[in-house]
């Protein structure tokens, strides 16, 4: 099947300057314009529209035990009230997996990564991901706080053994990369500690947070994981956490490292210990360290819920729960803390968090290294993305928002002085090519020949919120899935994973360990194809070597 997207303005900096041209698709892939006069089987006239690759999200909590626990904790946060159409069962069921896929697709997103795939909940997480329609998915395997790994460190096991153990976890849980959460912190919380810094030691294991991060950086490189180690650093939300980020950048020693939701660490402190923006300091540190990438974790206003495996942070954060209820789950390694939170325009600290996030975007020299997230739902829902893009693209709009900032916030941020406005090309880099490349998905995020035909077409509407809320047309693998801002039906995408090899001895070793620990052997982490019945759910991506 030959498809022609006719006459749109193609915005894809990986393929050169934006220009009005056709995009051709054959059998689900972008191709060069066919030679001769071969007629297209389908022509989509997109004259006057903006054509981009489908957008990619590197960090959004869309599936898994903690997400469902949050749904159970807060029924009042997501009361359904619109009937679903016959073509989209559960499509209006608020905060359902089905609604998540629909809303992402309608914004023109075609690939989204769940950043917290815990091994014991791997099958659960993948079952939820498989019920998210339209978009492709991936998930990052959480490592670094479990007893097995910490004992490898304590026992001084070899670099190869650690590489194999991480590869085992990645392959068994079918992750697309690895993530570590407040390295050592959740393990220390189980033992009663309530704070944890880069050089603090996990009780009983003798390993510092720094050593865990360094070890995982080495393992990620040894395995050849395309996505850099995805780090939820120590001291999230603490004034002065900027120092933790700078120390962690130094610890990476030039190796690729991705900071998740870095806004929550871009906090300095004044002489009284009060919070100030450290966005400029973070930006400078990142400018000097080209190995570092980050996503923002932008805060937006309104009621939401924080979902985190950082038990220590959630324990301290429960004091601010709104409404006043919360859940802490001590898992087999991390677990989960669910704390509802209301970011209020009347609260100067929340306003400052909002301003710091925008500062990080606007101060970043390279839109490929400061990616758009809200750490959904922790800083706000992903449905805020169109508004965030509008704020980045329009200084006047920002001025209207900053005009109402309370004086305490105004005095602590440099946001008002930033004149920069993101271009559509920078938006395409930040939301398409850069996240796809960072995740090791080379055929996504661009419209070059060979790319997967995930395409988003937007009206070039000066109201950027409207523009990015409802795409005029979205193609997934070349097939229309959204038209005029509305999903057309339930096509199902794939979940992308890595499948690294490792020494067979690790299979035997893990079988023994898992049998001792759970009594069930390798099935504790297993995600077999048979669990998905007739559904073809997974797609294996290449390693770096």
């Amino acid at each position, binding site marked *: 099947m030959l498809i022609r997207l006719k006459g749109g303005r193609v915005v894809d900096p990986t393929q050169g300057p934006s220009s009005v041209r056709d995009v051709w698709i054959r059998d689900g892939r972008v191709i060069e314009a066919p030679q001769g006069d071969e007629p297209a089987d389908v022509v989509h006239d997109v004259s006057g529209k903006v054509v981009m690759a489908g957008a990619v999200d590197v960090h959004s909590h869309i599936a898994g035990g903690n997400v*469902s626990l949050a749904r159970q904790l807060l029924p009042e946060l997501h009361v*359904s009230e619109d009937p679903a159409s016959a073509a989209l069962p*559960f499509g209006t069921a608020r905060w359902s997996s089905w609604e998540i896929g629909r809303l992402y697709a309608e914004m023109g997103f075609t690939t989204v990564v769940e950043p917290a795939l815990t091994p*014991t909940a791997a099958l659960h997480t993948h079952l939820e991901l498989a019920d998210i329609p339209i978009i492709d998915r991936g998930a990052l395997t959480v490592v670094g706080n479990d007893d*097995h790994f910490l004992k490898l460190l304590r026992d001084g096991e070899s670099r190869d053994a650690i590489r194999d153990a991480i590869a085992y976890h990645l392959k068994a849980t079918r992750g697309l990369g690895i993530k570590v959460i407040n390295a050592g912190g959740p393990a220390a919380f189980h*033992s*009663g500690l309530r704070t944890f810094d880069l050089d603090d030691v996990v009780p009983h294991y003798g390993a510092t947070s720094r050593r865990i991060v360094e070890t995982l950086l080495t393992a990620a490189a040894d395995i050849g994981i395309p996505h850099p180690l995805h780090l939820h650093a120590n001291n999230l939300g603490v004034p002065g956490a900027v120092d933790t980020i700078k120390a962690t950048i130094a610890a990476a020693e030039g190796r690729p490292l991705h900071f998740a939701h870095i806004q929550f660490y871009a906090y300095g402190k004044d002489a009284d210990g009060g919070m100030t923006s450290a966005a400029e300091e973070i930006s400078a540190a990142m400018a000097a360290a080209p190995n570092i990438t980050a996503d923002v974790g932008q805060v937006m206003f309104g009621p939401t819920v924080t979902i985190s495996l950082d038990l220590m942070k959630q324990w301290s954060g429960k004091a601010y729960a709104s409404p006043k209820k919360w*859940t802490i789950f001590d898992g087999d390694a991390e677990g989960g803390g669910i704390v509802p939170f209301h970011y209020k325009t009347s609260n100067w600290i929340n306003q400052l968090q909002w301003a710091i996030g925008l500062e990080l975007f606007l101060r970043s020299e390279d839109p490929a290294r400061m990616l758009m997230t809200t750490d959904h739902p922790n800083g706000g829902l992903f449905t805020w993305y169109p508004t965030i893009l509008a704020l980045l693209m329009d200084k006047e709009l920002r001025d209207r928002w900053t005009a109402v900032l309370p004086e305490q916030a105004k005095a602590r941020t440099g946001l008002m002085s930033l004149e920069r406005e993101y271009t559509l090309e920078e938006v395409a880099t930040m939301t398409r090519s850069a996240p796809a490349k960072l995740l090791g998905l080379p055929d996504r995020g661009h419209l070059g020949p060979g790319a997967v035909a995930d395409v988003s077409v937007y009206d070039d509407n000066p109201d950027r919120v409207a523009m990015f809320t409802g795409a005029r047309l979205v193609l997934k693998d070349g097939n229309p899935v959204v038209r005029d801002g509305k999903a057309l039906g339930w096509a199902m995408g794939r979940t992308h994973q890595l499948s690294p090899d490792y020494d067979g001895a690790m299979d035997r070793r893990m079988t023994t360990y898992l049998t001792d620990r759970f009594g069930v052997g390798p099935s504790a982490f297993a995600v077999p194809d048979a669990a998905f019945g007739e559904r073809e759910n997974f797609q294996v991506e290449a390693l770096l070597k």
Partner: protein
Amino acid sequence: MSADTKEQLAGLDERIARAVGLLAKARLPLISGLGADVDAVRAALLLAQKTGAAVDHAAAAHIAVELRVTADAGHMATTSAEARNRADTVVFAGPGAIDFADDSGLFATAETPYDWRGDRTVLCLGTGGRVPSSVAAVAATHLVGGPLAGRLGALKAIVAGRTVAGADAALTAAAETLKAARFGVVVVDPADLDRFGFELLHALVKDLNDTTRFTTLPVPASHQGRGANLVSTWTTGGRLRVGFGRGYPEQDDWQFDGTRLAAAGEADVLVWVGPLGPGLPDYATNLPTIALVPPGSGATDSADHVVIEVGVPGVDHGAVLADTVVDGFSFVPASAPSALPTAAAILAAITAGLATGAS
């Protein structure tokens, strides 16, 4: 394939057609039981969306106590493996906790990957004088009798430093045991408390965490209750009970209580999804019923009681089931594969029959 199985399958189309006929004329179908695997629950919810049905589950205490308290106040909990391996203090609260420990043998080993844990201190609270017989590596066992909820309230007051009239020495000592834990776990069957008592238990556990680490291990819901509720949670946004009368899911524990819907005459057909039990409820006698049950259930087919025999998940066919050992989902391969259809396949066939108008 045995001759019996062939005969069963031969009648399948006719029974599915009768099921479609019953549902096509129903005003409010009730789908319940749901002692079933993940695919069956997914299929049941899709049928509910299609027919505007109410959906309930057989594990009432899980919904009315445990999940209700999560929504009202939140909770603290851990996994079976963490309770077994990490807890240096194990509280058995109520008789159900004793039964669970002894039936599962969860604490029957002294082994732990956490080599610093040491022996366990055991506290039996409101267990009617019973102590578990299966716990290994016990350093000491304490027993506090009396009504469970009342004891929890008194302990919460003592832990908070308040004077409790009539607190006996055993109760005061129990409070000290709780505070002395390094990682304590309260094992409790939600069926042993009402939601107020269960919330009180969690309030006590939360208070204990101000000075030490403490959490709970709820006895797993019966009949895949945890798994079914989780599937509903991600599929509809909320747990069971749920109704689709308005074309979108509405969560309401009272409105969509199957027993109530049947007694009040609101539900006019029952779809009982019970490949893993329990058997048909009493109210099915007076309600047109479509029963998806394993062979040997004793249910008899008649004009308005359609009985369709389905395979047992994990026996006749592979299936994803809620696993109480790892507190997650696990795929369980068929232990004795058979040609019996899956509940999910039957539910999907009924949904498809309704879509084409066939009846």
